[in-house]
């Protein structure tokens, strides 16, 4: 029943903890972001297994992305993705206008350079979820004005 507040606080502590325990060199070359993303990956893999236990088979990639945008996002962040765009060639952009992990941080451009740290875990969540549904991908995130953010998913055809 863990509340939203509890997960939010734990996530923020995780980010702080990872950065505190890292050396200077690691902070600069992005090892910390990688660590957070890998944590998210593992969690995403586990979560998607639990969530899709009873759902029907997905018809195609777009169906999977819609599941991520609707059910997956709703269960984790209590809201849906506001906008999904695709070029039908393996690139999807998920836009969330009020991303739960950033709403408490600022409502505009303040702290913009700290925002990527707080998005890494969620990128990993998406990547992990897709990976256990059979899709290899690369997920990046960008923020121009908090709390809106965009997650870009690039599907890798093996």
């Amino acid at each position: 029943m863990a509340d939203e507040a509890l997960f939010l606080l734990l996530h923020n502590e995780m980010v702080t903890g990872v950065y505190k325990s890292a050396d200077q060199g690691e902070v600069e070359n992005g090892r910390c972001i990688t660590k957070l993303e890998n944590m998210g990956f593992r969690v995403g893999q586990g979560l998607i297994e639990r969530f899709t236990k009873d759902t029907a088979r997905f018809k195609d990639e777009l169906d999977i992305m819609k599941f991520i945008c609707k059910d997956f996002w709703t269960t984790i962040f209590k809201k849906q993705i506001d906008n999904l765009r695709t070029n039908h060639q393996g690139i999807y952009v998920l836009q969330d206008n009020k991303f739960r992990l950033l709403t408490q941080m600022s409502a505009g451009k303040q702290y913009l350079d700290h925002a990527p740290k707080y998005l890494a875990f969620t990128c990993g969540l998406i990547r992990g979820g897709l990976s256990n549904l059979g899709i290899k991908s690369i997920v990046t995130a960008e923020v121009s004005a908090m709390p809106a953010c965009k997650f870009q998913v690039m599907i890798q055809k093996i």
Partner: protein
Amino acid sequence: KSFVFCGLPRPLFVSPNVFFPLRQSGLSDSSGVAQLGRIKRPRLHSNSGPPAPPSCRVCPYLRSERSFYGDFWSERTAALFREAVVCPEGLIPFSAAPLGARLPLALPPCSRPLPGSQRESSELFTLTYGALVTQLCKDYENDEDVNKQLDKMGYNIGVRLIEDFLARSNVGRCHDFRETADVIAKVAFKMYLGITPSITNWSPAGDEFSLILENNPLVDFVELPDNHSSLIYSNLLCGVLRGALEMVQMAVDVKFVQDTLKGDGVTEIRMRFIKRIEDNLPAGEE
């Protein structure tokens, strides 16, 4: 495992047939907010039906329980209310609401997630916590450092969580350590982790007690490997409790006594009251 309530929408108004008469209590404060005196609850069911819930002076849900639960009012719900101290929304504990307590004018946003996703959002927290502990074990070589780090993180979470808790639960000030123990076990744990630990093993002086958790949601899906035998996996909880209580002027010492991960039957947390923290006034302002 946990009781899943029906997905009935919350009532937006209190239906008139269960509205009790306003009575002027001895309190002189009479702003526009309804003052609640002692309420004699009318029996809404015949003797053959399930028993009516205990009277809750403040919780709006129980005041209109018939209209809220309707056909879903059952023996099970009645039993739950009999043994629970907290109303199902985790809003306000029955016994802790003082006489004449004010109604919250705007109900706090429903913190209850959709039925079905209740279990899943607790899994998110469990899995995230697992990933965090795994990463910490990789970063720090020995278990003691990991324990300390978990405690520190828990402390930081606790000092913020207490504000969220107080805003949501509206409990009044606790007058002694026993009340504190009650609120922690029956309101706080229920609100955030969905479990209600039991309180036992009070010391003779009344300053130490144990919280017994039958099942710890943090350790779902977890097994401790052999080379981490001195790792206190759920040490975050100790930090959270310590941090939260420090913000309400209580210095406590919290530690794990038993842990299901290490083979014990239950998880036991021992809490010891150290002292009351007084606010230090800056020199010259005494």
